[in-house]
């Protein structure tokens, strides 16, 4: 919902329609994966479907707290999910999949330090702690890398359609107003351009929905680019 300030300083509601309320998240599976946002959930759910993994639920932060960054919201979700029970028992495991951003070590430590009892964080990223409750932390795009989901997805686009990346690279060169953009923002811009150019029926398609498109998806869910993440999901979900 957006609001515009009128000359007489009265706020006018431009859209009276409330966004459709999603049901509050309630785990129905023993394993829960927490990711950063809707777009990450799209990829993870697509991978779970592709791998035929049926014992995991996926959730992500719905709201950012005032003045706090988005990562803070992940820790809130972690706290809230850790208190959930199924038939009176704590969940079998919780995994967090988040961006490595500029510093993978710091990103790992931040999540590991916020795992609430009875869950014990794994000792290293990309591994699964297999105590009474399973835990895991995966840093996107993958081992030894920094960056975000968009970096991983660009690699997947390149694997399926190498020429298209050349085109968006040219756009980056032409658009000289983007010179001071961060690498993460440039990657996001490129991914949105690619998705828009492939989705004939809806160029405004969100990355969160791209996996439901059969012919208009510039990526392949079975791409080896997703092997690390697939292996992580398999190990986390195998009792």
């Amino acid at each position, binding site marked *: 919902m957006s609001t515009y300030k009128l000359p007489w300083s009265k706020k006018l509601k431009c859209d009276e329609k409330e966004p459709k309320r999603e049901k*509050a998240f309630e785990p129905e599976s023993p394993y829960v994966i927490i990711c950063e946002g809707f777009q990450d959930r799209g990829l993870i759910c697509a991978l779970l479907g592709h791998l035929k993994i049926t014992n995991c639920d996926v959730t992500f932060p719905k709201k950012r707290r005032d003045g706090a960054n988005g990562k803070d919201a992940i820790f809130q*979700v972690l706290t809230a999910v850790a208190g959930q029970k199924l038939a009176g028992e704590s969940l079998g495991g919780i995994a967090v999949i988040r961006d490595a951003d500029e510093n993978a070590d710091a990103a790992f430590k931040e999540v590991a330090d916020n795992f609430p009892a009875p869950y014990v964080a794994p000792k290293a990223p990309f591994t699964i702690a297999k105590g009474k409750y399973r835990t895991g932390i995966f840093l996107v795009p993958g081992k030894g890398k920094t960056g975000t989901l968009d970096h991983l997805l660009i690699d997947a686009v390149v694997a399926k359609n190498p020429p298209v990346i050349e085109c968006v690279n040219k756009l980056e060169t032409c658009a000289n107003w983007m010179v001071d953009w961060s690498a993460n923002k440039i990657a996001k811009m490129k991914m949105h351009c690619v998705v828009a150019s492939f989705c004939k029926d809806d160029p405004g398609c969100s990355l969160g929905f791209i996996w439901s498109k059969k012919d208009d998806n510039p990526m392949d869910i079975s791409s080896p680019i997703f092997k690390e993440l697939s292996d992580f999901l398999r190990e986390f979900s195998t009792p």
Partner: protein
Amino acid sequence: MIEKVEVHSFRCFRKLEVSNLKRFNILVGKNASGKSAFLESLFLSSSSAAPSTFFQLKAIRKIGNVITLPTDPSSYKGLWEDMFYEFNSEKRIWIKVSSNPNSDTRTLAIEFTTSIMEELPFNKQAIPSGTQASSGMPQVEFRWKRTGYPEVLIQPKVTSTGLQMGTKAEGKETIFFPAIWFTPTGADNPDENAKRFAELDRRGDIGKIKEAMTKEFSFIKDLSISYQGGIPMVFADVQGGEGRSRKMPFGLISDGVNRLLGICLGIGYYKSGMVLIDQIEDGFHHKILPALWESIFNLANEFNVQLFISTHSRECLEALLPMAQQHAKDICLLRAARTEKAGCTVDSLSGEYLQAALEQEIEVR
């Protein structure tokens, strides 16, 4: 303030231990998960008049306002048996509530003893053929103890005049820890509200209740006690048209407003005690819910009252978020659940947990 509750063999609880209770305790859970039974355990252990309270609870649960006095031991036992876990009256019920640091502990033990009731009712009642009348009635015993007070033994007896609860017969004063239970449709008894209003007025505390009511409902200008049909009740000075005002009983304004008044008066009246509110959302429009939480949180702080509040409503919980953000450290979320093996359980979760779950739309009910 109660910090810990232990319950053995009571209702749906085989063995329950709940710690880290706070001033504001929000109780959630599916139907038949033990929410009401948990409130009952708190309420029952709040006074030495537990046998009478037990029958009050039956009435609250709508399982009988009137007792037909049993004439045989088995039916008599059945009168009490639903208190026991899985109706097994062989096992002693034991409820202990303790505050931190154990300055005020109350324990209640209930069991059937091997002794037989001394007074029998059969002199005035027909004995159905085939009953074991000669063996007498089994004796149920309530032992209630509060720190600093002598133990109270209560042995209800069936007499020719009815069921005697025993406390007065034993010559002991009933000892109360101030507590009240508001049922989903309760809190609206005009007599009780008038009595509490008068007492708060006498104490000089009524101003806080008036403030809460007039702040939320701007058309209410003042509150006072008056009579209608010879019955004292709380009246509201309601703003009418053209600046005129009219006094009317709270019950005429709305059920919800009347219920809020009852809850606010209850919190004030049971100062330094405990207020249990079952299904708080009942009777309230969703837009009033944030103000409802604010009012009862402020009053509970003001009157040093511990609240135990159950709800099924997501809207009601969402409306709690501003209070959860302000008072996270004073809030405990109690999640009741039914398990196959161990009866019902109640998990205690922190106010920070509740805040996180509400903000991130994770189900807590």
